């Protein structure tokens, strides 16, 4: 019998790789675009990828009980999956592309040698999905931790690009050392032009998870997509009725098993009746690798048997148990004191929803942290309780909220940070500044400073200068201008804390009290003014 591989599917395989590269490129392009380009408003929608994600759409809708119109795009993905199967995972998903490429590299370097038949259970991602969905019912948004777009964007924003920026800085220093001044300077200009933030408190942890997820591909091909991805699981459940069904031509098949061995997602092409439509991502590998061109994906209207969707025995008991686990998990996330009382240092970006709604909507993608021009937005660890891990908070010691900037509000994919014009944003308070008189230079040293006042961006300034007397250690009394805060005017931007010359523990600092978004974390009440008029 004539042995020949299918030319058609080899072409399709190349096309699929091209499609992955193109979408990954688009993702990168949009990701890099999320910064101050010279325009106050970002024209391209850098967060559009997220809107095609049906899991994020569903979880955000359910957990926050809010409809976010832009998620209509997710319906496109749903319909495409219903008709064509998990092509989204195989051809579009940029995180899938990362795993695909790294698996490929691990295979080529023989780190990864796929077994003839993989027995590992595919059920985990379904359990993860069930827990995420069950949590959402009670307002817990866990989707962001393992959703591919959130995971990839966060990893890139908080660790990969900062790492790249760090490496570029090293390269720059190297260029200088060998006298390539102009090459070094080009790197300097690029770093500033693209605003590549370098400093992240959680950079190591987030990067560790990302590299770990990539490294797992050396163990099992596309480990993430097979065993972890809740979005893939969700799409898998939808792909029972799709019209592209794998068929093996029995007359051509030589039962070599290459197709099953090299299937990227353990969809088990051979034997044909064991093929799992819910796992197949239409990467075309099996059809292209088949030495006799026996495999094809003809149109077929017949729905797949439910047990064949992924050959996972999701028995009613198991589903019920995991649902219960998802529901039971919620109270444990809510035992934190941040539920009862505002947290000192939890300064949310301007336009952030009130805390419970914010937590229900934020998918921890880190897009706002990418866009922040001062590097001030940082992933939280303990400040917002367990469900707030990796949600954004302003850390003024690292970077302040730039007065004429509202980029973070423009790039949020879910509306957890509501879009603000610059004028609107400047009416919002995100916190209040305080002077620590036991550390402030004029108060303690009796020396002039006024740096905080000079940097205060509101007009009239929220930091006023008053003359204070300081008794110095030698008993001499000096009079010096020292800062006091007008809390009516302070927006909590934190530039005072950022620029304070007392660098280790700034003598002027911002806390969350007085933030506009919270009714509980209040400071100044509307009171009747002296003239009998309501106060400001």
């Amino acid at each position, binding site marked *: 019998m004539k042995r020949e591989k299918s030319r058609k599917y080899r072409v399709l395989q190349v096309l699929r790789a091209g499609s992955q590269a193109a979408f990954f490129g688009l993702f990168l392009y949009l990701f890099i675009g999320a910064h101050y380009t010279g325009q106050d408003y970002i024209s391209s929608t850098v967060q559009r990828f997220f809107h095609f994600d049906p899991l994020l759409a569903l979880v955000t809708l359910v957990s926050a009980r809010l409809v976010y119109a832009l998620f209509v795009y997710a319906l496109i993905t749903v319909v495409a999956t219903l008709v064509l199967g998990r092509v989204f995972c195989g051809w579009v998903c940029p995180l899938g592309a990362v795993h695909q490429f790294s698996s490929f590299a691990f295979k080529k370097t023989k780190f990864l040698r796929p077994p003839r038949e993989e027995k590992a259970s595919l059920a985990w991602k379904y359990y993860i999905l069930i827990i995420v969905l069950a949590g959402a019912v009670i307002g817990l948004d866990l989707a962001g931790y393992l959703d591919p777009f959130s995971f990839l964007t966060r990893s890139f924003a908080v660790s990969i690009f900062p790492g790249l920026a760090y490496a570029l800085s090293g390269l720059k220093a190297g260029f200088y050392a060998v006298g390539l001044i102009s090459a070094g300077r080009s790197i300097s*200009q690029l770093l500033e032009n693209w605003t590549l933030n370098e400093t992240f408190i959680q950079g190591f942890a987030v990067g560790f998870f990302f590299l770990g997820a990539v490294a797992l591909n050396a163990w099992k091909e596309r480990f993430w997509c097979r065993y972890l991805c809740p979005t893939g699981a969700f799409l898998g459940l939808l792909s029972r009725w799709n019209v592209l069904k794998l068929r093996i031509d029995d007359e051509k098949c030589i039962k070599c098993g290459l197709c099953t061995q090299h299937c990227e997602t353990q969809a088990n092409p051979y034997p044909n009746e064991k093929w799992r439509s819910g796992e197949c991502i239409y990467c075309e590998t099996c059809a292209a690798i088949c030495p006799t061109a026996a495999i094809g994906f003809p149109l077929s209207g017949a729905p797949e048997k439910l047990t064949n969707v992924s050959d996972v025995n999701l028995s009613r008991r198991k589903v019920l148990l995991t649902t219960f686990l998802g529901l039971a998990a919620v109270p444990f996330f809510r035992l934190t004191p941040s539920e009862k009382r505002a947290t000192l240092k939890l300064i949310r970006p301007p336009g952030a929803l009130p805390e419970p709604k914010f937590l229900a909507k934020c998918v921890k993608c880190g897009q706002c942290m990418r866009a922040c021009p001062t590097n001030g937005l940082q992933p939280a660890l303990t400040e917002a309780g367990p469900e707030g891990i990796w949600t954004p908070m302003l850390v003024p010691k690292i970077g302040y909220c730039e007065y004429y900037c509202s980029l973070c509000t423009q790039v949020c994919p879910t509306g957890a940070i509501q879009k603000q014009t610059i004028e609107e944003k400047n009416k919002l308070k995100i916190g209040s500044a305080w002077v620590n008189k036991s550390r402030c230079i004029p108060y303690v040293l009796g020396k002039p400073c006024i740096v905080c006042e000079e940097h205060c961006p509101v007009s009239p300034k929220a930091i006023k200068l008053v003359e204070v007397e300081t008794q110095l250690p030698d008993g001499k009394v000096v009079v010096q201008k020292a800062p006091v805060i007008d809390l009516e005017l302070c927006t909590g931007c934190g530039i005072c804390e950022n620029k304070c010359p007392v660098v280790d523990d700034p003598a002027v600092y911002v806390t969350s009290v007085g933030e506009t978004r919270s009714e509980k974390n209040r400071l100044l009440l509307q009171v009747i003014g002296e003239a009998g008029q309501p106060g400001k």
Partner: protein
Amino acid sequence: MNRRDFLRDLAVGGAVLNWAPRALAGQAAAPSKGPDLAAVEGESPYLITKEAVAALGGMKRFVGKGDRIIIKPNIGWDRTPEMAACTNPDVVKALVELAHEAGAKKVTVIDNTTNQAKRCYVRSGILDAAKAAGADMPYVDETRVKKTALKGEWLKEWDILIDVLEADKIINVPIAKHHSLCRLTMGMKNWLGALGGARNQLHQNLDRAMVDLAAFFKPSLTVLDAYRILVRNGPQGGRVSDTKLVKTVVAGTDPVAVDAMGATFFDIRPQELLYLKLAQERGLGTYELEKLRIEKRKI
């Protein structure tokens, strides 16, 4: 430029600046054709700048053929021109053009900003204006500064922008603004933007720091933008009502005199400003305007 040339230039430039600090200023001030100060009033910041330089005898007096020129505006803040927190972009543009016309080989506009550099460069309007006039406008980072001996009375050494150290001629282009520590920030205070390092510590002895810096940086020409000045909530303001239109540009070779004239726009007598007094005592120039030949024009 290879590294050897770069280091040699740096060493020579540093040596000139360190050991013969008076030489540069002497050179610039020597051919004293024309008046000491030119103050030109008019509707167009661009035209009054050109007129002010012309009144001093033209840019050729300050810029030689093949010179590498640094133009140092105040671009410290993320503010648009009508806020009068940064130098007017048209003033910068006029100076870049004049420097090119006078034969400059390269014109670089630079400032170490306070807010995000890109925002300051773009929103001040200076990036567009400078680029349109053919200037280079790089952002400052840690590789662009060098610890340099200032030999000042208070400041012994500090990080200085390498671009400024390497330049053949420096043109200082401040804007006149209110400042709550030194009262007014103009030309002498503008040198803080040519520094790296923890500049905010300089406030603990700001007037002396300003004099030490003015003694170190020897601008061939100072052009004070007083087209729109900032009269309160300085040095960045934030409302148009914090500003006042004076529609004047003051140019001169004596940095103390230029600042002294600037003070008059705020109805402040120059001798009230400590740094001007200290600067005169140090022999950096004079604030006694009545002793100077001042050419006033209106166009």
